Every structure is written in structure tokens, then in C-alpha cells.
């Protein structure tokens, strides 16, 4: 007989703790708001009307279920003569262009339920900011989005989208001027305005209940993908690949497979210039145990516990921490985490564009690079499922500069 622990399912685990990770390292002033949120979302998830409304918005507004697309030309170019099958879960086809809308719509509905009128959000690539601005416009909430100055420059398109949608975008000029600092600033806003404001965290990070709640709002990705893979291939995939910054798209697709031990789960972190250079954003592969933004997890930090700046070509992965459930899945060996350097991600990015006619987000290109590695390892009998978490329109500027696609002096 198996020990009791071995039979305890991994799906459905809820915070505040995931093993030695998670918790609530926050000022007392926010405890009441976190308790209120915890109660509101538990009640809501148990209520058919709320879930019915969420499901309706998924079908009639977001565009769920999202497609699954096989990528045979990509697989052939990537895998040589005996390629594994590569299946793409098309979160890029969601309204607003990424998986972030799944969570934003859910939390915006909760905001209404709690009687609050204003949402704030942090954003890196701008996808979560756009999703939040969209949900706020749809449901009649005020939205303020904090975004690092550096990210506003590299994701200018999304800044305009948020403003068109009626959100106020506030540039953050402290620290590294990226996602981590945007989150600091959003926390400062929240502790000041908590009475009428919900902090709509976009990642599966932050204090309890955010990691659990965001996962529960994103796990629809894996539920659909598992069913779709069974229908398409007649069996479960061998490997599921997803990119990991804070880790919301990854936990969203991993969750449905946690109790399928034959399915390997691989999280791809941003390797930047390479983990060995110290210029990267791979918190699991290259970080230490610390506390960041209210949760205990793996953090990029120096010997004294000061956060070290992360580096990645992808603004959405440029975060020096990771969601606590990922840290735990790494600890217990249920998921594997590897890093993909900028160059390898951009190679996968370009390959998908040319072979399948799909421009992926640079974030998602890290998962594609992981799929190439896994596909080569598995060979022709293998099936790799990739979470294509977002589309790459926002990244054309970065890609144009990276690949030199705009001629000198083209001017316009």
C-alpha cells in the first residue's frame, strides 16, 4: 500500500503555505483586506451564479475555450528528422492577447462583489495591465496601472492600449524601473486606499490568498488543454512546457496535470545573458530562499537579502521572484525548472513566426525554446504541450531591434 502522503492529490492544494513557501509577510494594515478577499473568493467560487457569470464571460467575451493547434512545421524544423509532436495551447487568441484576461475578469468580478470601485495593478509586459484595464472598462471600475519606466519604453503599444481603455498608467521611476518596482508602488497605493481599492495582482505571487486565487482563476487553461490533448492525440502529453516569471500561466496549465505522474512539467525561466553571468531572471534556477512582495519563495538576492535586479529581454518575465507554488513543486520534484537565455528564446520566437505564421509573445518564446529541447529528447513518439501564453504584437519593436528589421534611416 502507498503511504497516505503519496495518495494525497496535488491538485486542489490551497495556501497560505505550499511546503516551506508562501504565507503573508505584509503590514497589519492589509490583513483585513486579505481576509475579506479570501472570504469573498471562497464564497464566490462555491456559488453557481458567480461561476456561471464567469463562465459566460469566458465564452462570450474572452473567447474560451482557446484552441489547441498542432505545430508540425515548427516541430520538424526544431526537431530534425524525427520530430516529436508539438501542440500549442493558444492563450494568445484570447481577447486582449494573453492568458492574463482569465484572472483579470475573475478578480474584477470579485471587486464588484466586495463593493469596491477601483482596481490597481502592476504590469511588466503590459499584458496584465491591458487585461485589467479591459475588465475594468467592461465592468465599470476605475483602473490605475503601475508600470516601470523601462517597461513603458519597451512595451509602448500596451501603454497606449491601456490609456485607450480608460486606465491611468503611472510610470514607476524607483529601483530598476521594471515589474518588481511597479509591484512595490502598487502595494503602497493599496495600503493607502484599501478601503475602496482592490489590488488586482496578475501573477501567482504575493501574499495569501493571491497565489491560490490566481491559480484557481487560471487553471481553466490546463483543464481545457488536458481534454483537448486527449481528444487530439488520444493520450496525455509527455511534457508540458510553460514560461515562468511569477508563474501564472505555468501554474494555470500545470495544475490539471499535477496528479498525472506520467506527464512531466517543465517551467522555463528567463535566462537573460545566461544564469552563469548573474544577468538573468531565473529565481528557481539561480535564486535563494527569501521574501518578496509578501510571500516566502525563491528570490534573486545578494548575501544580505537585498533583491538583485533581474534581466531579461522579456518584460513579462523580468521579475526576481516566483510564485510559492512553483517553489514548492520544485522542492518536491513534481515540476522541473530550467532557464532559457535571451538568444535561444529569440531563435524560437523567429522559428514559430516563419514556420507556423504565429507571432508569439517573447515570454511564450521561452516555453517554445523549452519545447524544442524536450522534443529533441523525446523523439518521434513524444508529445509536447506548450502554453502559448500570449501573442507578440507588443514585442515587434523589441524584435525589430533584435533582428535588425528596420533599415537605417528608414525614418518612418
Amino acid at each position, binding site marked *: 500500500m502507498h503511504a497516505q502522503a503519496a495518495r494525497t492529490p496535488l491538485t486542489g492544494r490551497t495556501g497560505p503555505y505550499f511546503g516551506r513557501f508562501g504565507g503573508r509577510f505584509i*503590514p497589519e494594515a492589509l490583513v483585513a483586506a486579505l481576509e475579506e478577499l479570501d472570504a469573498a473568493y471562497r464564497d464566490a467560487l462555491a456559488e453557481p451564479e458567480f461561476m456561471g457569470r464567469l463562465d459566460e464571460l469566458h465564452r462570450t467575451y474572452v473567447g474560451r475555450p482557446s484552441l489547441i493547434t498542432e505545430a508540425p512545421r515548427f516541430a520538424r524544423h526544431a526537431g530534425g528528422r524525427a520530430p516529436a509532436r508539438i501542440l500549442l495551447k493558444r492563450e494568445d487568441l484570447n481577447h486582449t492577447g494573453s492568458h492574463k484576461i482569465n484572472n483579470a475578469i475573475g478578480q474584477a468580478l470579485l471587486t464588484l462583489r466586495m463593493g469596491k470601485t477601483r482596481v490597481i495593478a502592476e504590469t511588466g509586459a503590459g499584458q496584465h495591465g491591458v487585461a485589467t484595464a479591459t475588465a475594468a472598462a467592461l465592468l465599470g471600475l476605475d483602473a490605475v496601472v503601475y508600470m516601470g519606466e523601462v517597461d513603458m519604453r519597451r512595451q509602448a503599444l500596451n501603454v497606449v492600449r491601456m490609456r485607450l481603455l480608460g486606465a491611468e498608467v503611472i510610470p514607476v521611476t524607483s529601483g530598476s524601473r521594471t515589474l*518588481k518596482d511597479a509591484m512595490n508602488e502598487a502595494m*503602497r497605493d493599496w495600503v493607502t486606499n484599501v478601503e475602496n481599492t482592490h489590488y488586482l495582482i496578475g501573477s501567482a505571487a504575493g501574499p495569501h490568498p493571491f497565489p491560490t486565487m490566481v491559480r484557481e482563476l487560471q487553471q481553466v487553461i490546463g483543464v481545457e488543454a488536458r481534454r483537448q490533448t486527449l481528444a487530439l492525440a488520444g493520450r496525455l502529453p509527455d511534457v508540458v512546457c510553460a514560461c515562468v516569471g511569477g508563474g501564472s500561466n505555468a501554474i494555470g496549465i500545470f495544475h490539471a496535470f499535477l496528479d498525472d505522474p506520467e506527464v512531466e512539467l517543465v517551467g522555463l525561466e528567463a535566462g537573460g545573458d545566461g544564469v552563469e553571468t548573474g544577468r538573468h531572471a531565473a529565481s528557481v534556477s539561480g535564486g535563494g530562499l527569501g521574501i518578496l512582495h509578501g510571500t516566502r519563495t525563491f528570490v534573486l538576492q545578494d548575501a544580505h537579502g537585498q533583491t538583485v535586479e533581474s534581466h531579461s529581454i522579456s518584460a513579462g518575465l523580468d521579475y526576481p521572484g516566483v510564485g510559492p507554488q512553483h517553489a514548492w513543486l520544485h522542492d518536491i520534484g513534481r515540476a522541473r525548472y530550467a532557464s532559457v537565455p535571451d538568444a535561444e528564446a529569440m531563435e524560437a520566437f523567429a522559428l514559430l513566426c516563419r514556420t507556423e505564421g504565429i507571432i508569439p509573445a517573447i515570454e511564450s518564446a521561452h516555453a517554445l525554446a523549452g519545447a524544442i529541447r524536450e522534443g529533441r529528447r523525446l523523439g518521434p513518439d513524444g508529445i509536447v504541450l506548450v502554453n502559448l501564453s500570449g501573442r507578440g504584437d507588443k514585442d515587434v519593436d523589441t524584435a525589430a531591434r533584435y533582428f535588425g528589421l528596420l533599415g537605417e534611416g528608414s525614418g518612418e
Partner: protein
Amino acid sequence: MSARATIERAKSEGRAALIGYLPVGFPDVATSVAAMRAMVAGGVDVLEVGLPYSDPLMDGPLIQRATEAALVGGATPADGFTAVREAGAPALVMTYWTLVDRYGVARFAADLAAAGGAGMITPDLIPDEAAGWHAAADEHGLDRVHLVAPTSTPERLALAARSSRGFLYAASLMGVTGERDLVSTTAKDLVARTKEVTDLPVCVGLGVGTGAQAAEVAGFADGVIVGSAFVRALMDAPDRASGLAAVEAVARELAAGVRKAASVAAT
């Protein structure tokens, strides 16, 4: 003398205690320690030695600038022990928890006690997460100061009181550190609600910057906590000597304020 004994002594003199915060390492370790001594010379009763942290999400722009500069200058958590040792008044460390977590809570408590520290204020460590710290504090006889907030329920106030030793820190308004024009009316309510559940001294922080505000808060609290006004005095000074003089002058104004409370309260 412990922080609590110092606060009680002030009370016996018919006034509130003055508690002053400064981050160690701004503008450099030696000057910050000298500034803490100037604060004590000017009338600060108890010192809060802040440890600079890279992501100070409970601090406003002023303290952010100071702690960022301290980190650029290479300040480390261990510099906090130097300040505690040399400050010349009962001193507590005030820090974001991750720095202690990284240092190791048992080792941190031992080193803090060895430096003669009175204890620690933990603004992002709620009692629910503090079992390790509580045990280490007990082992070394250190004060453990938790915060209460306007949003704290009666149950949470009682939890914070049960979990604290030395005094309770009432964060008097919702928001980050920084001076405000008006002392929030919620401060008085919060102190009254806290005093219903504890005999510990209740000290009020966040937003106090002037002698008049100190007098007002001293009318209902056992201690007045001031941070940003000291940081500003040090930051705005053209050189070290005038910075230290400015810090001492701010302390004098505030020290006079906490002694005026009786007359303010009577009006």
C-alpha cells in the same frame, strides 16, 4: 534601560516619550550613528534603527531615497548592530523581515542582544508568521513590537497585544511613511481601541513631523514616533555638521512638543 521602562519614566514625568527613527547608513554609517546621537542629545528617548532594504514597500519617497543611498553606500544589516551599540539610548531595530530571514532569526537575535539592543519592530511580520522570532526574542530577552492599524479588528488588536513586549506601534493612518499636514483623527480612535485590550504602552507613528503635531499626539498616546522629519533634516543639509545640527534641532522641537501635551489636551 529597556524601551518600556524609558516610556514609563516619561509617563511619570507627565509626558509622552519621543521615539526617533533613522536608517543606518544614510548618508554613511558613521554620520548616521552621529545623527542618532544628535537625536538623543536633542531629546529623543528611544531610537529606532532602520535597516535599508531594496524594496521598501511601506515607505514613502523620502525614506526610499535615503535607504537607496544607504544601500549604494554599502550599508548592511550588521551595521545596524553598530548603531544600536553606539546610539546612546535604548534602541530597537526596525526592519523588513526578509533581511532577518536571510541573516537567520536566531543568529540575528543573538547578535542584536550582544550589541545591547532593546528589541525589534517588525512592520511586515504579523504575529501569525512570527513564531520563530518570538522564540528567539524570548531566549535573548528582547522586546518584540508588532503594529496595529486602523483596519485591525478587535481580535487582531488583542493578537498584536498578546504577541508584543515593550510597547505597541499604532500605525495611525493608512499609507506609507512620510510627514502629513494633519494628524489623522483615526489615530486617537486606534489608540483608544488598543488600550481597551492591553496595558502595554501604545506609541503612534506615521505622519508626525512637527512639534505641534507631537504635542497633539502626546495628548492621547504614550509615545510619539517620528522618522521622515529626521531624514529630511539630514538630507536637506549642505554638509555633515549642519545636518547633525538640524537633526538635533528637530529633536528639540519634538521633545518640547511631547512636553506640551497637557496644555494642548486641556484646550
